[in-house]
């Protein structure tokens, strides 16, 4: 195999710049297609840019956390974790309990997070154990786990609550006294009854002002990094340093462009400047991004990566592979539970038997659209993917209507894209693996 790699390196070195660009395009083809689709969709829908942007800010802050919850299992080589649905259920259990007790607003939200945690850990542990028994078939298993758990969830909240589990609440429960209602209002009109906007409403600022402040800070940070370099020891390090400087300068110019753009929008007095950003929610998402990035730099993260790359070698090196895999799923499930809380506090109504169902698939489609694959996913891909996915979501019904005279076609197309992108990227992954295997066989 190594020989081939050597050969490949040689070929790579020999290829010219044009082919490098082709490589970049081919590696990001999914994302590029979706950028084009989104642009066409925006154009066709004829929606005002303010509406799209405003909607997008809401949706990104609402959904990114769930998408980010998928990253660690990918790192640990377990593929796309369809069973975040189970985590979402843990979140909803907490919401139902907290709404029942009548604790609202931020305290209610925080209590939800606390209550959801043990449930999510338990569910994640069980799922992880099961996935260890079905190595090689993790994704289909996690998908079916979602369906299975949904059955149990329905059984509990439709039939056991009010019979075996004692609970009395006229608002939340069906009139018969058994089972939870289909929808639970988390805001409740005049009197607050739930956790709607608990996080979003703490602090809202116009997004472009925030961007201006953020860009200035980022530029300052990069300047600091650029000037404050320690002594250079040898030639090799010197090379690295110059590479680093280049990186800082590129970063700086990017933020400068962002800064100028924001200033132009604010100064130009376009409606865009009124778009509000739920600052605390975004900070929470930012913390999770940071968590995903930082964990890679720890011992635990290295173990995730090792297991993800090669289970056998990890085992020989003395890593408890099964334990690491369970841990990856537990973390993902807990994050999904919290992600569902963020999602629902923004939506404001809990659809008891439906809110969680599509979460896994939508999050996974978003991640894949951002350019991730079954074996590789980054924070950037998650955020980009969420943005693209939801742009498509916002514009496709109208685009369909304007193009075919039928909004349904747009919606079906959207659904086709969701399922199709998952199918295609799973297919490509399996196909690449097989091609790799075959190529290994062919070498002489």
């Amino acid at each position: 195999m190594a020989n081939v790699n050597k050969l490949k390196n040689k070929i790579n070195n020999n290829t010219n710049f044009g082919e490098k660009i082709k490589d970049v395009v081919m590696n990001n083809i999914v994302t590029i297609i979706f950028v084009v689709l989104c642009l066409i969709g925006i154009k066709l829908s004829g929606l005002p840019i303010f509406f799209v942007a405003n909607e997008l800010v809401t949706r990104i802050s609402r959904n990114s956390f769930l998408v980010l919850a998928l990253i660690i299992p990918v790192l640990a080589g377990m593929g796309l974790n369809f069973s975040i649905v189970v985590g979402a259920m843990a979140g909803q259990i907490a919401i139902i309990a907290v709404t029942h007790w009548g604790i609202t607003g931020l305290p209610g939200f925080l209590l939800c997070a606390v209550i959801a945690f043990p449930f999510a850990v338990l569910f994640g542990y069980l799922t992880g154990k099961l996935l260890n028994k079905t190595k090689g078939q993790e994704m289909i298993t996690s998908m079916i786990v979602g369906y299975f758990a949904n059955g149990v969830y329905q059984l509990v909240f439709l039939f056991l609550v009010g019979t075996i589990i004692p609970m009395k609440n006229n608002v939340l429960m069906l009139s018969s006294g058994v089972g939870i209602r289909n929808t639970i209002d988390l805001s409740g009109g005049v009197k607050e009854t739930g956790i709607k906007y608990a996080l979003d409403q703490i602090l809202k600022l116009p997004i472009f002002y925030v961007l201006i402040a953020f860009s200035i800070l980022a530029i300052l940070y990069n300047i600091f990094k650029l000037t404050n370099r320690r002594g250079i020891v040898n030639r090799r390090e010197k090379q690295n340093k110059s590479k680093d400087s280049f990186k800082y300068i590129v970063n700086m110019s990017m933020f400068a462009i962002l800064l100028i753009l924001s200033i132009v929008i604010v100064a130009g007095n376009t409606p865009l400047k009124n778009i509000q950003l739920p600052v605390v929610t975004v900070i929470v998402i930012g913390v999770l991004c940071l968590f995903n990035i930082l964990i890679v730099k720890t011992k635990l993260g290295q173990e995730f990566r090792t297991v993800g790359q090669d289970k056998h070698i990890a085992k020989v090196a003395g890593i408890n592979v099964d334990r690491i895999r369970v841990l990856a799923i537990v973390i993902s499930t807990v994050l999904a539970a919290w992600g569902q809380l963020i999602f629902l506090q923004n939506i404001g109504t809990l659809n008891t038997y439906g809110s969680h169902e599509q979460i896994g698939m939508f999050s996974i489609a978003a991640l894949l659209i951002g350019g991730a694959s079954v074996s590789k996913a980054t924070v950037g891909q998650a955020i980009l993917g969420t943005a693209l996915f939801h742009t498509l979501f916002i514009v496709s019904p109208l685009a369909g209507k304007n193009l075919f005279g039928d909004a349904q076609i747009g919606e079906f197309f959207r659904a086709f894209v969701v399922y199709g992108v998952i199918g295609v990227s799973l297919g490509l992954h399996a196909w690449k693996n097989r091609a790799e295997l075959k190529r290994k066989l062919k070498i002489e």
Partner: protein
Amino acid sequence: MDTKYTLQMKNIHKVYFNNKVLNGVNINVKPGEIHALLGENGAGKSTLMNILFGMPVIHATGGFEGDVYINGQLVNVKSPKEAMKLGIGMVHQEFMLIPGFTITENIKLNRETTKHNLISRLLGSSLKTLDKRSMESDARRSLDTLGLEISEKAKVSGLPVGHMQFIEIAREIDKRNIKLLVFDEPTAVLTESEADNLLKSMKKLASTGIAILFITHRLDEVMDTADNITILRDGEVVATKKKEETNVSELALLMVGRKIERNVPSENRKSSEDSEDIMTLKNLRVSMPGEEVKGINLSIKKGEILGIGGLAGQGKIGIANGIMGLYPTRGEVYLKGKKLKLNDPKTMIQNGIGFVSEDRRGIGLLLDSSIQLNIVLTAMQMQNKFLHKIGPITQINNGKVKRHAIKMINNLDVRCQGPQQLTRRLSGGNQQKVCIARALTLEPDILFISEPTRGIDVGAKKLILDLLYKLNKELGMTIVMTSSELGELRSICNRIAIISEGKLEGILSPFDSDVDFGLMMAGEYHKFHKEEA
């Protein structure tokens, strides 16, 4: 005990399922000594190493007898982890490297240097940050010790094979307490110059005081590098020699020599050199992983039993698999002068070539199907036998199938409850007979049979060999038998081709000397005879 030895293994006995695999083995290695461990496949080398590393397989099969001393201390190694703590390291034959990781990450695999951060203080040490800088400098030092110029930050995936081996070694010497390093056939996958480099590094390592146990079958490397040599055969130490006191041909003899079990009187087996060719292989190349064939020219004579021998991993197994089209194959195969289409099992079967695979349970049998179905299936598919035909519609003719199966069961003496029994329930020997029955049902002109007696008890072994001999004598069937057991090849074959490093090393008569066999198996025959001349 004597502290001047890094490793002493004393009077080691090991029994696997009533089968003695090690019988009173002693081995002593001093600090800074390169000690070669020589032996054929199945001589007990890997069992000895499994004991040294405390592999679970040893404990699962009832442990072992004897004592192991490290630096004079009696130790009881229960797991590979403990072995690591005691300072015993292994450089694997197959690389335990992660291609997507950098060299540093591979060297420090699961032994990363870490430092505390705010969160790890709260939540435990598994959240400690990796100390990249110190890991890299450690890796650099190990690479420098080996004289390797590559950057420690490079990814492993782009490296040549030779370098990968060095990274494995670097990982072992990065373990500070390393006292004893085991090299398991380290040069098997290397080019000549890479192998030279490796041997140099081994000497360099030994000069720092690390004891080295060097498992190999390449005799010239042994003579070049080792200080002392222990030769194992059939689980016993046949000799321990100082390098200065021995030579290549003596080592070859010690490695292979054994009393030859001859089933058949020798006068019945004339040389088949003069018979006409039935099949000719020209520059046959097969890419079977682990058993690569790298260009073989060979003629198979009509009516002979041709043996194909050689050490494991040298490519002997690949020949039959390649001809049958089970692995990508190039070159030319002629049957009675007619060129055959390669990579197509159907062509081969329809041209009267039968095959009994070495992988009995993997390729040879449908384990959850009946004996009778196993026997007739290939003939049914390839020759339309055993079928009722009504126009285009076919149905299996169970009566015919059963009659044929019973005939075969009786002829080959398959011990079973009847033709309906599932083959999974049969013993190894009887499973092998079912495989042979399936091949015979095709009525082949040439029968390729690989490792016919692997995993079969002694009594059944003789039955299988007798059967092959009978088929050859009575039906005139040409048989090509591939086997790791030289003794069994020498007991029934007319000629024996020895394969080394994917090439034909030479063809011997079963009555040639043990030294010649030993030299050929080790791939030294031509070198040695050239020097003599």
